[in-house]
């Protein structure tokens, strides 16, 4: 049973990461920096609980805020460029963060062992959950409670004026600007909110794996982060969840029996999905159909 709880934990953390990219994608920007923000969140949260002995919840909150601050700082210069230039700028930023943690040493002695991040070896012994007697099931519940809160917040935001503003910027910047929307403010706030969510996901990730290293937060994770909302479609937050379950649950775990071939199939299925459903698995048309079905029932 623990295996399925573990799987649910992975899906939860990846959902958060996907939602952070979803937030930024709503404004029409593709950010490959989400893995970098997650790395910031992971290291900050882990250092707070392990080195400073803080409780998990304030640590997670601070990690999210730290990641959001950095996202804000990245947002300003990076948003001077648009579209594909932004993809590249954020990709480079994500790599820069990863390389920073690759070279980052800060260890203190705690009892008999030295703990803290140590360059290429990573950050071991993030033992908050085992030390405080959390079971896998409880950790999973915590993760999904956070996921549910973030999803509810995003879903509510989508139906409010803020959501309309974000989508307006995403659809047509010129039109949005001409009705008096401050593009920079909207984009930087979206970036900061996305950074906060990514920081949360990183912080949780660090605590349930107990060991993080720079290689966890590379280009592949960044690609996953934007793949979820794009594959799932941007019409609703549920698209992202469907995509995460599809990729992490079906493609990665479900196809385990295929061994090496699984990785081959993974890239091929993304290519295929994009050819068949360029607007995502849950595109506006199928969403409208679902709404009608639910409405009638």
């Amino acid at each position, binding site marked *: 049973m623990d295996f399925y709880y573990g799987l649910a934990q992975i899906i939860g953390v990846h959902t958060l990461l996907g939602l952070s990219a979803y937030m930024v994608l709503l404004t029409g920007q593709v950010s490959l920096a989400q893995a970098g923000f997650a790395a910031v969140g992971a290291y900050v949260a882990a250092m707070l609980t392990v080195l400073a002995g803080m409780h998990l919840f304030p640590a997670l909150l601070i990690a999210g805020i730290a990641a959001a601050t950095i996202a804000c700082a990245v947002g300003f210069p990076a948003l001077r460029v648009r579209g594909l230039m932004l993809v590249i700028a954020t990709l480079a930023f994500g790599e820069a963060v990863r390389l920073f943690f690759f070279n980052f040493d800060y260890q203190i002695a705690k009892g008999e062992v030295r703990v803290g991040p140590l360059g290429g070896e990573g950050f071991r012994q993030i033992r908050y959950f085992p030390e405080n007697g959390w079971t896998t099931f409880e950790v999973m519940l915590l993760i999904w409670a956070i996921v549910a809160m973030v999803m509810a917040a995003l879903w509510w935001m989508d139906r409010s004026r803020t959501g309309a503003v974000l989508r307006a910027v995403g659809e047509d910047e010129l039109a949005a600007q001409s009705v008096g929307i401050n593009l920079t403010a909207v984009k930087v706030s979206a970036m900061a909110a996305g950074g906060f969510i990514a920081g949360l996901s990183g912080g949780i990730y660090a605590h349930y794996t107990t060991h993080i290293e720079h290689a966890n937060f590379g280009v592949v994770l960044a690609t996953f982060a934007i793949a979820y909302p*794009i594959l799932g479609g941007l019409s609703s937050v549920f698209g992202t969840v469907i995509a995460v379950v599809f990729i992490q649950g079906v493609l990665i775990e479900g196809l385990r029996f295929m061994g090496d071939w699984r*990785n081959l199939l993974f890239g091929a299925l993304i290519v295929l999905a994009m050819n068949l459903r360029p607007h995502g698995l849950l595109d506006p048309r199928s969403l409208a159909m679902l709404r009608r079905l639910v409405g009638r029932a």
Partner: protein
Amino acid sequence: MIDLAQSIVDGVLFGTTYAVIGIGFTLIFGVMHKINMSFAAASIAGAYSGLLVFLLWKTAPPIVVFATSAALAGLIGYAIYLLCFRFIPIASPLATLMSTVGMLLLVDEIIVHLTAGMPLSYPAIYDGYPIELGQLILRVDLLLVFLVCLVAMAVLLYLLYRTRLGIATRAVAQQPVAAQLCGIRLTQVNAITFVMTGTLGGIAGAMIGASVGVLSPLLSLPLTVKGLIVTVIGGLGSIPGAIVAGLLVGAFENVFQMWRGVTERDMYVMLLLFAFLVFRPGGLFRIAGARD
């Protein structure tokens, strides 16, 4: 001082391969206003496919391997066009971005699968003594790589600016609708662009293999990042920009590799990119009135 000069020279010579990869990104962007994330991976795959020659002809000279790499990389380029661009609506840039990322993973995995993840040795372009120029040592193989890349770029520029095909390509880049009204077939021109850039990428991949000595699937991600950085620093869509930026990035990273070591080197390259984004977001060779 001599160390500094030496590392700049080495860096500039190796930078040509970055420049060629950057040109590939820039050209596809210029023509289709889309980015092909799988380009660098396809280049490496092209270089790998050149090794197939050895299956048929055990003692093939390096030049045959390089030529095969280039030719097969052109084919791979066409395949990528068909799979990732041809059937995806032009109005959804996110979909092609994602499909080429999927392609990047797929190409990498195919390589890993076929070679069992082991690096393969690649024929060197030259294995004699280096040239000594005063105190400077010039690696002849890098020099030859530099020359080959220059020739490849010159051929590409000739094709683009002196032939009817080039006129068609540039017309599509500037105004697809108007080009179509003049009787240019969009899909054909786009396909030819992919074959052309694929071939160029194959040459770059072969040259990278020749100068590093081994090919490994681990090369493709860093090369993608470097190629994209070169494209941005040079100005998206600008071919001379990509050339200059490639050499610049090559020299820059080699100098920092000398000063700060290989683990920190790439961090400074990213900082260079950010400096450009803040102070000169259009890149070195900004195209006037360039569209997004």
